[in-house]
């Protein structure tokens, strides 16, 4: 029974995003036990798997999990709304948020070989403006070819069949409100909300005006998320191609 209790404690520590074994003696001792005692470690893995969590790392940074498909720990639509409750009312707000999440990841790992680097080696920090510039730059590229196309059909707009980048392109970057605050719906404000959300999740640390990706984020992306993202995109592209063939 004590083994199962302690396995539960270790899983609980692993799910607390901002607790580090350096700061908590019990957590550190449980990590050391899991490293030394293979029987105990097997219990931790089995219990967490049953809870819908895949174990991706156990080391001096603690224990790290990834939610399995359909897990209660996977991000829900309500969680996505919580990132920026003030601006997450419309479908385009949410879509812009997805583009921001992927852009942050692409900015941190600009080259394929960066994904193969040691996750213990910190990637350079990023700023709000760098994420904004990356997305605006891509929008400008797409806009050049878009200008030569005829005006979109009305039902395309109604059914949101326009390209996703247009949602970002049409949104203003930053607007100062009367009270001197940053406008809630501007893209820079949305980028800030996403990064702050990840700071609260223990994935990033704020360094002045920049955001430093932490080990938790790096090990998460480098142990499969990057290839998962490609699979998600490619899966949909395959479906589209099949639909076109049928038509």
């Amino acid at each position, binding site marked *: 029974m004590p083994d199962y209790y302690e396995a539960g404690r270790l899983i609980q520590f692993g799910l607390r995003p901002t607790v580090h074994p350096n700061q908590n003696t019990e957590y550190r001792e449980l990590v050391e036990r899991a490293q030394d005692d293979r029987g105990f470690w097997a219990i931790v893995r089995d219990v967490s798997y049953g809870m819908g969590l895949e174990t991706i790392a156990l080391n001096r940074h603690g224990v*790290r999990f990834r939610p399995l498909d359909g897990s209660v720990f996977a991000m829900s639509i309500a*969680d996505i709304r919580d990132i920026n409750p003030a601006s997450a009312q419309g*479908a385009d707000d949410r879509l812009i948020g997805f583009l921001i999440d*992927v*852009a942050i990841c692409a900015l941190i790992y600009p080259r394929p070989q960066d994904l193969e680097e040691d996750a213990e080696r*910190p990637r350079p920090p990023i700023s709000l403006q760098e994420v904004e510039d*990356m997305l605006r730059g*891509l929008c400008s590229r797409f806009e050049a070819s878009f200008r030569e196309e005829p005006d979109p059909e009305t039902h395309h707009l109604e059914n949101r069949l326009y390209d996703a980048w247009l949602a970002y392109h049409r949104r203003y970057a930053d607007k100062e409100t009367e009270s001197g605050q940053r406008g809630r719906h501007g893209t820079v404000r949305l980028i800030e909300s996403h990064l702050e959300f990840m700071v609260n999740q223990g994935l990033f640390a704020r360094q002045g005006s920049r955001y430093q990706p932490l080990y938790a984020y790096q090990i998460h992306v480098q142990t499969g998320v990057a290839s998962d993202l490609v699979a998600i995109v490619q899966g949909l592209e395959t479906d589209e191609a099949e639909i076109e063939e049928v038509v």
Partner: protein
Amino acid sequence: MADMPDNDDLTRMPPEGDAHAELVQRLRVLLYARPLLQLRRNEAHRQQGHLAHYDLLVIALKIFDLVVENTGLDEEMSGERLLPHLVPILKVMDEGAGVTPSSGRHREVVQAVLDWLLNERERRAPFQEDYLAVTSTEAVRRTLEFRLIDTQFQGEDVVLRLTDPGVNLYLSALDIDIESAQAATEAVLESQVRRGKLESAMGTAKAARAQSIQYQQKIEGILHQTTRDLRSVDWKRAVPDLLEEAYEHTALRRTTETNILTATNERLDRIEYGGADARRLTDIGALVQDCFERHVRLQGMVMSARGVFLDAQEAQEFKPRRSGVLPNLQNDVLIPLMRMPAVEADKVGVRMAQALHGPLVPRLFALGDYLEWAMQPRREVGVAASPVVSRELSDLSLDLLHFPDDIREEGDAWLLRQREPVLLSDLLPNLHADGRTDALREYVALRVLNLYAPETETLIPVIVERMDERFTACGFAGHDFVVHSFEQEDHA
């Protein structure tokens, strides 16, 4: 983390015994220094006139020095902590060029050099140097990839570490393997201590410590690489041989270091207590003791290294899941997502957000907690509900204070006025020249120590960093400190 000598890199070398192997090796050695030489010729630096009087190479080597000195300590050197340590040499360069020192300019030049050393232009990718590898049978153009300074997580902080090429450059020992270099350095050190060449011995002891750190990084790097990807390390032949050699090497180092410590103590017994030589010997002893303790830990690590291999075999599932080709996240993910119809991108985006954010703990509804919250009496929030009565405050502390309040206030005000970084060794004579009392000087000296390692909450916005250099001034002696008030940053 030290750069690992990856297998690809080794196979790029000409076969041993090839007539040109040494030529290629020497060529590679030279190339490691190229980023530093480029730094000196940096065009951007030339164009920025206000930084033109700084020697960037000197600053870079001082950064190497600071990183090595702090490696392995509880608080290692980070980019943010570099500046106060570099201020003294920056001031000397300012004075040499007749320029008024400026903390903004100091920060700018240190950041520029650090960005260069970390290769921030390429988002910290390794430096790449092309060269022609000539063997007896062919000439092939190859690319040498390396880092000089690397970064590592220390909790949530990012600290700086020298890589193997970085340490070798720093020690001017690029063409010697670390084990031989370490043995030679310690032999020289023992001889210098025995002959009383203490000034030279101090530099040699620092080099010995840097080499022991480098050697530790080498062994830790191999063990870390094993846990990261078992296949990248040869556990059949190369690593067992290396570990056996490491065990013998560390045992030998411990013997030599014990001899040096004995020689240090013997000499210490023969010289005048409290003099400059005694201080040097104490510092040398501390550096050698650090090497000794490092080698003891390393030997333990080497003895249990076999377990690392077995654990890594057991935990194969931690290896990054690698597909055949690594994706380019912008071209393969972001751009296709942006080009999708919004309605489809929305569906895909949810799955991507789930993949990118890791586990989120759902909040559960607890009826008991809810009822307790709901049953709480409502709090009245009236403006005048609780009138604040002004009270006579009195000091309840029972501790007798050595310095009266006026001395404390005057001393703190003096420290707060130091808007530019200043050395304690300069500050104390300034107080003396200004006709301030001995009590005030004593308070300032003690306050600086207190701010360096505060035990009470009576802090003021002043940064204090310890220097390696020692000083003697106005009746005070010991390690020097840089004092810097950051009140000005708040105003900015």
